[in-house]
């Protein structure tokens, strides 16, 4: 690929503001859309939310009022981008339906990143995490059939399998063991920085979504399952954010954020099947190119460094939503019994893990187990989508 965002000029910032008519986008049709269109929307919403919150944090740590004003101008446009992107989701979808789509994102985005990640330590972090998102998809799918009599298949449409991953009850680790070691900013592949930022943002948005929508449910099992998985999202954000080198300056981080947005809008524009959504990715790419230039100017001015020194010379291969079934089955076969110890991974349940398990479960079955029991009472079976044959782990085959 020859697309270099540093060499492209986008739309000037003072021509980026949209009026109400332009913000009033037509949402996708949940019953007929490409499931990966919905995944791209959910991903970009997470990316825009991170862009907005990062800019707010930066502004709160900025003394110069002129710089604060510059950040506010770009951030207002980012806020409009977030409104357009997230408002592509339809009002007729239920929270649970959207949740299943969030988990499809977590599975296929993280699996793809794990496949492409060049650094073995970072790759392991994604491989570890994806087996947990995979199990969340399965638990929510069973809840969905109980509450709405709908199959998760009508959302994931055979692109992603639905079956047990690492059992959710084992995701509750001591917080100390959720902190990874960071990559080293001056040595790591620039692609690794983009991967870490992307997955961190997606998981953070999932955490925000569950923590805010979980209590809108009235069904006790639904409220409880959102609480349980919501707490695991806290662990996942800790896990992924700790991969990012904290030695990057604020301005370097800003540049990385803007560059990543260019990368993702470009990637999604290249593969989008819905023409109306594709037009939005293209417009937003052209806006982001300008945001990147503004960020680069700020970095040059405040860090006295050239942004080219921290960025890739050209965009990496496009980040792609596609099925990862064989890859996930291989991980299910080999990594299901892993847990973390310090910044590494072990197969044995260690003392700190067992203590945490004992305390959080309080001697009872957690919501993620009870949802399966209640589903079985209602239907006499589980809900799974196993398109490629039985579960690779004999212990996790349906009894």
């Amino acid at each position, binding site marked *: 690929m020859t697309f270099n965002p540093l060499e492209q000029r986008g739309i000037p910032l003072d021509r980026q503001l949209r009026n109400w008519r332009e913000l009033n986008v037509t949402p996708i*049709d949940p*019953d007929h859309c490409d499931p990966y269109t919905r995944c791209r929307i959910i991903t970009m919403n997470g990316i825009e939310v991170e862009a907005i919150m990062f800019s707010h944090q930066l502004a709160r740590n900025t003394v110069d009022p002129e710089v604060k004003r510059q950040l506010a101008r770009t951030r207002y446009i980012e806020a409009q981008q977030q409104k357009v992107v997230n408002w592509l989701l339809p009002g*007729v979808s239920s929270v649970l339906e959207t949740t299943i789509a969030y988990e499809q994102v977590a599975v296929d985005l993280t699996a793809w990143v794990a496949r492409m990640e060049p650094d073995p330590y970072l790759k392991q972090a994604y491989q570890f995490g994806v087996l947990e998102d995979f199990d969340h998809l399965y638990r929510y799918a069973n809840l969905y059939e*109980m509450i*709405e*009599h*709908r199959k998760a*298949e*009508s959302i994931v449409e055979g692109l992603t399998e639905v079956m047990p991953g690492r059992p959710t009850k084992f995701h509750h680790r001591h917080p100390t063991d959720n902190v990874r070691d960071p990559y080293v900013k001056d040595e790591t592949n620039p692609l690794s920085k983009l991967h870490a930022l992307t997955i961190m943002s997606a998981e953070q948005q999932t955490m925000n979504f569950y923590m805010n929508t979980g209590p809108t449910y009235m069904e006790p099992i639904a409220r409880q399952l959102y609480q349980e998985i919501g707490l695991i999202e806290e662990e996942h954000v800790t896990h992924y954010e700790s991969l990012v080198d904290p030695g990057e300056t604020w301005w370097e981080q800003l540049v990385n954020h803007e560059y990543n947005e260019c990368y993702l809008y470009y990637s999604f524009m290249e593969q989008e099947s819905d023409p109306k959504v594709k037009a939005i990715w293209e417009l937003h790419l052209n806006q982001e190119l300008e945001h990147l230039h503004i960020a680069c100017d700020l970095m040059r001015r405040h860090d006295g460094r050239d942004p080219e020194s921290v960025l890739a010379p050209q965009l990496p291969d496009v980040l792609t939503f596609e099925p990862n079934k064989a890859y996930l089955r291989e991980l299910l076969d080999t990594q299901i019994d892993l847990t973390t110890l310090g910044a590494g991974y072990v197969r044995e349940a260690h003392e700190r893990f067992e203590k945490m398990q004992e305390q959080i479960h309080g001697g009872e079955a957690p919501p993620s187990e009870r949802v399966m029991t209640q589903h079985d009472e209602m239907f*006499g079976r589980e809900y799974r989508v196993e398109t490629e044959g039985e579960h690779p782990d004999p212990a996790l085959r349906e009894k």
Partner: protein
Amino acid sequence: MSELHTPQAGDDAAPDNDVVSLLMRQHGDIRNLFDEVEASTGEARQEAFHRLVRLLAVHETAEEEVVHPFVRRSVAGGDEVVEARLAEERAAKETLSDLDDMDTGDPKFMPRLLALRTAVQEHARAEERYEFVHIRRSADAAALASLAKGVKAAEAMAPTRPHPGVESATANVALGPVAALMDRTRDAVRTAMGRD
């Protein structure tokens, strides 16, 4: 596609003692039937469509007889909530009776079915968000169960998935036109609720 079949409300082992949960599952059943009509062709589509029409007729009648009167009686501002839902239902019913006479192979069928699907789905979510929340807030367990009983009586009037070997066209003829089904459903609900 997965081979799993989700049974219709009433055919699963849920206790069905909460009218809101029951109606929400029925909303899913209706959505499943729209999927089935869209995915099938020929006689299978005609047959699935007949089941959809009848489930819709029964479901809407149950809501008119059971849910809306409760909301009018028990919820402050309930009349306005119900009027908005009734307007949506009237529009959907008109499309429904037009479609019921149509051959599912007619080129005009699919666009009209999709329009109906959109209207029905918007109506269902509006009920869940603006009407059902009031029911759960103002009804105690006994009231939720009693309302559920009325909906169950209506549900018994809707044909479920045909058993293999049963000639479905005959079964549909036996059910008669939609209007007559609505009348019979109304009577069944009133009997079950002790209101006849």
